[in-house]
């Protein structure tokens, strides 16, 4: 008897035994060069001589004096807001106690104490169009302010990072980094990306550290110029193919094809950009400390790796804009495992179990973990001096961390932390409480269900877009409005 198979028939076998074990999926290697070369890299070349030549070439902003950066982070599902009379209030309420310059961090944000003078916590801000929409629908519009609603037709608009990237992206190899733990775009009202383009279309997020690293630092070919010229020809050809197909399509099909054409055009823009960069060598970075195949199953390591990649991208001026969504709302997806970093099972569940013994503390402990990592990232920027310039990297980088809901998925009083950007004029060391009404500014504190997500507003809040306009202006974007903004925030 003789059995012969020519195909890989591993897919025909059962998952018993062998298939159940750790299966690493072997990927096609995209880089034609030996990556070990990079692994042996000698650290970031701090002098970055290539940069000087580029600034002349691109006639762009001088990095040392005029480099501005933005990074935004999203935490799903809100924060602990126990009532004032709850024993957990003192330690585990997310918002600090006090206000203005006179405030104390609770244990949730305590890890930020060492960089207190670079930190502003904000309360009383929210997107008006989301205030009566359940928090789980709102990650989509955290950075856009668009009325994406809770059901029905869905339309989004450009996110603040992309507004800034349209300008800052001119100066760097990559316009912006769009990252999330879950990757892709997700679904309407279940976004797995924070970034939306000028047409309001979701920009797919990268979620594999290895891919992000390769995109930033691994040269895809030995002779990039030729490659790019070829890409351009290939793209032209794709356009021609699609245009000729279009002529023979029904009206409905033409719409679908239009999206395809648009993606080809967007790719062309990227190739054009890459062309301008082709003579500038890629920075070499030391990645011995990084485990690039880490997954969210190892949450702390994964989160640190993602932060580190953003740090490296900023440090090498590969981009000046980044978004990273820690997780999708509502405990959907692998991001729900992040709480395992601090010994819990599922992240979203922590938000539902605040009334169980130790519930506030558990949820707060998770928030503290995020603060630690966020703080570590900010401190790292602070500890790195700006190339050729005065101050440190953090002074030229503004970081926004937040969630589209506060107490139990209530879409108001967003928890927000601004860090850095002193050279742009950001003022820090304060807890700013906006709005009018209930001085406590703790709508639905202590809520133990999300039943009140559309309760009456007893407190008048300020549009979050006002903060965005303020940020954009300080980042050098000439605008006096963003989405539904009504002004700016002078205190920030």
């Amino acid at each position: 008897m003789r059995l012969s198979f020519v195909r890989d028939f591993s897919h025909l076998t059962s998952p018993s035994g062998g298939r159940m074990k750790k299966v690493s999926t072997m990927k096609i290697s995209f880089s034609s060069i030996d990556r070990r070369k990079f692994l042996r890299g000698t650290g970031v070349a701090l002098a970055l001589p290539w940069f000087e030549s580029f600034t002349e070439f691109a006639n762009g902003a001088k990095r040392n004096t005029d480099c501005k950066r933005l990074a935004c982070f999203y935490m799903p599902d809100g924060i602990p807001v126990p009532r004032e009379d709850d024993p957990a209030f003192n330690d585990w309420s997310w918002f600090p106690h006090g206000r203005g310059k006179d405030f104390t961090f609770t244990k949730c944000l305590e890890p930020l104490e060492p960089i207190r003078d670079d930190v502003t916590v904000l309360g009383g801000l929210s997107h008006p169009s989301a205030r009566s929409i359940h928090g789980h629908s709102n990650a989509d519009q955290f950075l856009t302010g668009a009325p994406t609603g809770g059901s029905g037709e869905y339309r989004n608009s450009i996110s603040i990072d992309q507004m800034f990237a349209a300008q800052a992206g001119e100066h760097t190899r990559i316009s912006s980094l769009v990252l999330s733990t879950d990757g892709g775009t997700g679904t309407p009202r279940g976004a797995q990306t924070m970034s939306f383009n000028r047409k309001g279309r979701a920009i797919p997020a990268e979620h594999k550290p290895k891919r992000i690293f390769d995109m930033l630092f691994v040269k895809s070919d030995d002779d990039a110029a030729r490659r790019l010229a070829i890409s351009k020809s290939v793209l032209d050809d794709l356009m021609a193919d699609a245009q000729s197909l279009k002529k023979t399509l029904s009206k409905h099909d033409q719409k679908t094809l239009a999206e395809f054409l648009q993606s080809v055009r967007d790719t062309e823009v990227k190739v054009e950009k890459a062309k301008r960069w082709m003579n500038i060598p890629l920075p070499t970075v030391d990645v011995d400390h990084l485990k690039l195949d880490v997954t969210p199953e190892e949450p702390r390591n994964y989160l640190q790796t993602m932060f580190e990649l953003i740090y490296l991208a900023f440090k090498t001026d590969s981009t000046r804009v980044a978004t990273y969504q820690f997780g999708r709302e509502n405990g959907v997806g692998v991001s729900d495992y992040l709480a395992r970093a601090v010994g819990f099972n599922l992240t979203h569940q922590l938000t539902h179990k605040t009334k169980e013994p130790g519930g506030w503390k558990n949820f707060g402990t998770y928030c503290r973990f995020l603060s630690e990592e966020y703080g570590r990232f900010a401190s790292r920027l602070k500890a790195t001096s700006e190339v050729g310039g005065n101050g440190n990297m953090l002074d030229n980088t503004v970081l926004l961390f937040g969630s589209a809901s506060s107490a139990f998925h209530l879409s108001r009083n967003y928890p927000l932390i601004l860090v850095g950007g002193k050279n742009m004029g950001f003022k820090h060391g304060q807890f700013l409480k906006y709005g009018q009404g209930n001085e406590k500014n703790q709508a639905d504190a202590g809520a133990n269900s999300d039943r009140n997500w559309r309760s009456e507003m007893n407190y008048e809040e300020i549009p979050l877009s006002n903060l965005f306009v303020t940020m954009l202006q300080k980042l050098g974007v000439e605008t006096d409005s963003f989405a539904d903004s009504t002004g700016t925030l002078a205190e920030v």
Partner: protein
Amino acid sequence: MTNSISTSLLAFLVSIPAVASAGSYETVLRPFLAKYCVSCHGPNKQKADLRLDRLDPDLVNGSDADMWQEVLDLINISEMPPKDAKSQPKRSERQAIVDALTLSFRQAMKARRSTGGRNVIRRLTAYEYNNTLRDLLGLDLQYAVDLPPESSAKEGFKNNSSVLGTSALHIEYFERIARSALERIILAPTKQPTPYFVRVEPELAFKPEPAPVTTGKQTKKQRKPKRRSGFGYDIKGDHFVPDKNVKTPLFRIDHGEPSANGDGVLLAGNRPSDKVGDPFAVDRKIGGSQGDGRSGYQPEFRIEMYEVPHDAPVLVRIQLSAVPGKDDAYPRISFELGSFRGANVSDQKEAANIEIRSTEPAVYEFVVHGANFPFQSNKPSRPSYFRIFNDYRRGTSQLTYKELPKLNIDWVEIKCNHYDTWPSPQKNAILFASKSRNDESAYAREVIARFMARAYRRPVSDAEVDRKIALFQKLRTQEASFEATVISTLTAVLCSSNFLLISEPEETVVANVATEPRRLNDYELASRLSYFLWSSMPDETLFKLAAREQLHNSDVLLTQVKRMIADPKSEGFSRNFAAQWLDLAGIHRLAVNPEYFDFKEKDKVLFEQESIQFVHQVLNSNLSIDTFIDSDFAMLNPALAKHYRISGIGGGSFQQHTINKEHHRGGLMTQASMLFGNSTGSETHPIKRGVWVLERMLDDPPAPPPPNVPDLPEPEGKDLANLSLKERLVEHAQVESCRDCHAKIDPWGVAFENYNALGQWREGVSDPLVHRAHQAVNIDPSTQLKSGKRIQNLDDLKKYILTEKKPQFRTAVVRKVMAYSLGRYLEFSDRSAIDTICESVEHENESFHTLIEQIVLSEPFLTK
């Protein structure tokens, strides 16, 4: 308004675009608004700046749809009219207006997304893209792993045109994936790579004088001639490695015993220690592989090789026979490729898993591609390996060591860099032999034209080829070689809209006018068939029939459908249709709460496999679609049988097992994929389960809740934790209008209460499988459906579906398969086709094949 009326109304109204349909606006909405709303939101007063009598009732083209949604929500949750208003609507009035508005919104949604009942252009899904490259290039690699994760359409199908977006990121990936695959094939060296060859006679391990132990942690104990369980032996004689400096390969045997004739090694199945008659009960794990997650004593046979050519085809030849165990238990060979990533850290993946029945020695031969496996070790000093073991699991059977089936392995040969021909067949298929090989431009034209036709899945026009030739000529000046230019040109072919999109264009320019429906041509039909049944491109047979214009013949079509179902590639249908129809992704969205269950997360894969295998079984054996609701068999492997507490199941992979009543299994609804996927990961979730049944089995999705109503409350604090499930449902449905909707949903889910969150059976007042702290209070599956029908338990519910609800269930399955086959939403114009298919299916004893055949023969499938 009852459900059945709204359904039929809906059917009539979908094609009418202007909604808050004239009728319901005049008869239901306007009177209600006039009576309860307009006094505050009308000509005299406009509280909250809202004037309802002026709102445009056209939800499709009008501009007030958002406002109407708000009105609906507020009325629905009884916030409007305000509590202190003088006149309050009756519950029935409120319900009527909510129903009317909800219906209108549904219609408007359908009208907006309508494709006019016509099939539409769509991008290949990630899995179709992967399979198409596999079949086009003849190389089975994981091409699509880096593509961004994809979402699914409202009705759960990923191949729905409306959700298959394309972004610049996609284009970049498509370009990179295509280029690297083509480079791998075309840029292979001209000289055939030297094979790396190893032959092993395992009995060497048992010769009177054991060969000297060479590597690994050796202990004195191990060196004793008796009770040895694991050894490593250098393969001195029968091997050939391309480089003399490469370390000598070796083989290891762990817990194997000599075969009766002394000519091989016997590997028993996996089992916990039974001490009695088990020669290895003491020497547990000595010298064996560790930390790989296998439990108990796993006899294994491993060949370790250094610096293997890992990115190339591997030929494996094994001579072996079966030593059957008690009760006709046969061994299974499982064969893995892996590598060491560190001290005691290894990674491997299974390449084959086959039951062996022959007691006579026979040679088995496999070819796999090393790139699909973690076969590349990360240091020259760490080996890559092949591993063989007997994947018979004792499972829930009671076989002792002696009674276990064993594999008798005579010899094994491994050949890396295995190419029958050189250049590789993949390269020969692209750069084929031709008379014009010496005339570069003539040859380029042949190569590109042939590749294009297969990639585009149709004949290509001269103009199309001309354009690619123009590209080729342009690139030729920039590229270093003919081959490199071919790669770039074919990359363009693989990124073209003609490859990435499934399109059915008109033959002439249509210039924006609506076209009349037309028959698909035979090539279009071939693609539609193959993406339906194989999730991949057509094969040569289909192309030939298309070329002869015979495919559209009903007889030919039916023969092809039969052939395609019998082809292993139909696993593409079972996997992808099942995954999307049954929402198997739900399994991965949820994590099991370890406070409730002792459960290994990775075992969730079993849940997914069971449902895929089950659907595949129905397809393969042409069973009745009733099987989806109830069956006298289950697809089980030992691990899943253990999970379900079904005794007597041994063996290896998933197999059909007859079950009886006390197993409480049968059909899709008792499978853990559904039961777990629609739980909270801790507890059951009757609402989700109810919605799943209505949506997936009866195609009658309940109206969406008013946006974002809270989920079923988690038991918070001691008080709520003591509430019974039913009480919590009542708690949830405090608002009247919620209660009305939930009366339609919840009872369907309550009937599943005998199945815990992991789909395990439970009854009485406690669930023995849940940790004590989280005991359920009372398990009561009895319920009453909205129709008044009383249901005692799930068996009752199944019966009800298979009798009174039978036509609805049949239609549901037809609609699901049809939507999947067309890659679009179904519309009113598909209705008569669906009715006809349903009649045939009923007539043919609910045969699943009939259902598929009739869909293939239906107008919507055959036309554009």
